[in-house]
């Protein structure tokens, strides 16, 4: 099985799971229903999918400071992704990830949206800033 290693910047903690990849930005305010983890925005490329328990890969978070407690709340009720991979993470999503105890990495040496496909098995070591991708 083919393995790819990506290196970048991370928060803290480790996570692993099946990747769910969006080619778009994502708002945890309007695109995702935080109560269920489902993507509810009809114009989003993940419409109808659930982010729950995934390694969620997307460009960057949209929206402002409201994101910051939404993701920890999802973690509390069990609808959050296990890990987050962004091209470039914005401050509210970093705050949210640390608060919610969800490992996050960004600024990887290869574009995660090109390298990772939905269904790949992904391991994140956020302390080291390393992502290991096992192609399905």
């Amino acid at each position, binding site marked *: 099985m083919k393995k790819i290693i990506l290196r970048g910047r991370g928060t*803290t903690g480790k996570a692993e799971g099946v990747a769910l990849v969006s080619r778009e930005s994502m708002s945890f305010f309007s695109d995702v229903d935080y109560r269920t983890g489902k993507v509810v925005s009809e114009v989003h490329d993940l419409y109808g999918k659930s982010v729950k328990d995934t390694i969620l890969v997307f460009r960057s978070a949209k929206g402002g400071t409201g994101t910051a407690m939404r993701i920890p709340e999802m973690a509390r009720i069990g609808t959050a992704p296990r890990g987050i991979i962004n091209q470039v993470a914005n401050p509210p999503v970093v705050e949210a990830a640390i608060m919610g105890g969800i490992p996050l990495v960004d600024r990887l040496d290869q574009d995660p949206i090109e390298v990772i496909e939905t269904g790949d098995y992904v391991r994140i070591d956020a302390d080291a800033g390393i992502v290991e991708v096992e192609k399905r």
Partner: protein
Amino acid sequence: MLAGEFGQPVKRAIEYLIKLGEFFGAEEFVDIRSCWQDCSFAMHHEVGLQLVEELAAQGGKFRAIAIMGPCDMPEWWQEIGQREEDAKKTFRLIEAYKKLGGYLAYTCISEECIELPAFGEHCHWGGSNLAIYVNSVLGARTNVAGVGTGLMCAITGKTPKFGLHLDENRLGKVLVQVDVELKSLTDWDALGYYVGMQLREYGMIPVFQGLPKNILEGARRRLDGALMAYGTMGMYHIVGSTPEAPTLRDAFGGRKPLKELVVTRENLDAMYNYFPVKDKKIDLVIIGCPQTEVDEIALIADMLKGRRIHPDVAFWINTTPKFKHLIEEMGYAKIIEDAGGRITYRACVLWMTPRYLAEKLGYRRVLTPDIKYAHYLVGYGMQPVFRPIPVCIESAIAGELRG
């Protein structure tokens, strides 16, 4: 602090801030004298409420002056059908913040806060329209952040030094040439919203050229709020007006703009039509995002004097408690209330369970002169329309959109 000599809450807070600072490459902490902190259950959720209560129960005390923002429940929450269970959460959050030492100022307009930071001073005023005012108008330094960061900064009295705390990140990036005369207060909303929409990437600080040197606070709050509805820049410069931009050269630090925008009357007019009118009837008129300034309330009272708001229309104004005495003393409160309107000195409609208001209580067709309200209410199942103040008042009286 990490060793726990200042207690568990401080240890927990500094651990969080170290992680945040390390991620963004901060090399040190700076001491802060003041914070602005959100006070709404809507932004905290259950997880945030539990965190604040835990820190309070562990004996946490704010080491920085913390000025609290608006809450979720207006004084008249029962009269408009807000649920007891929601109110209880709001009041629990307020109690916990009070225990931590937060000042219940319920304000989201900077110049009415208790302790203003000075030019060059580091602080943590994380709320979007507070941060943009502090950075741009006062020349003090803060990042924009959510409630978790604000809480931890207030507890430690420190913030990691990255982002807008650093000189190099405060320079202008985009030149905005304003080629239009701003005729009404709401034109400032339209300007801010249009520019914010074009600058959605982090750090795209606009430099305005062609704006007046002195700006009424009623116009300023609109520009600040609207810029941050879409925008994430946290700061702007106005050449010849704001303190870090005496000249165009200073604003850009001698560098070239990455981009240039020209704003015309056409661009502003497009913002008035950005939220489509689906139905001329109106359920709710709301004013005050950010909170209404006293001169705007004077204007509204003048238009409402001796008249009646249509019985099918709810009319709510949100302002800061610091204005309460003035609004009552000048007779504005009585005029507005006699006309059938309500004033809240502590709550924001964005936090007042807007989805429940729309879906269960029928406050769906909303008219507002505040574009930031319109922007956010779309996401809660409301149908907002943005219009100048006089149109909002005449429409409230007529019961349907007039203009």
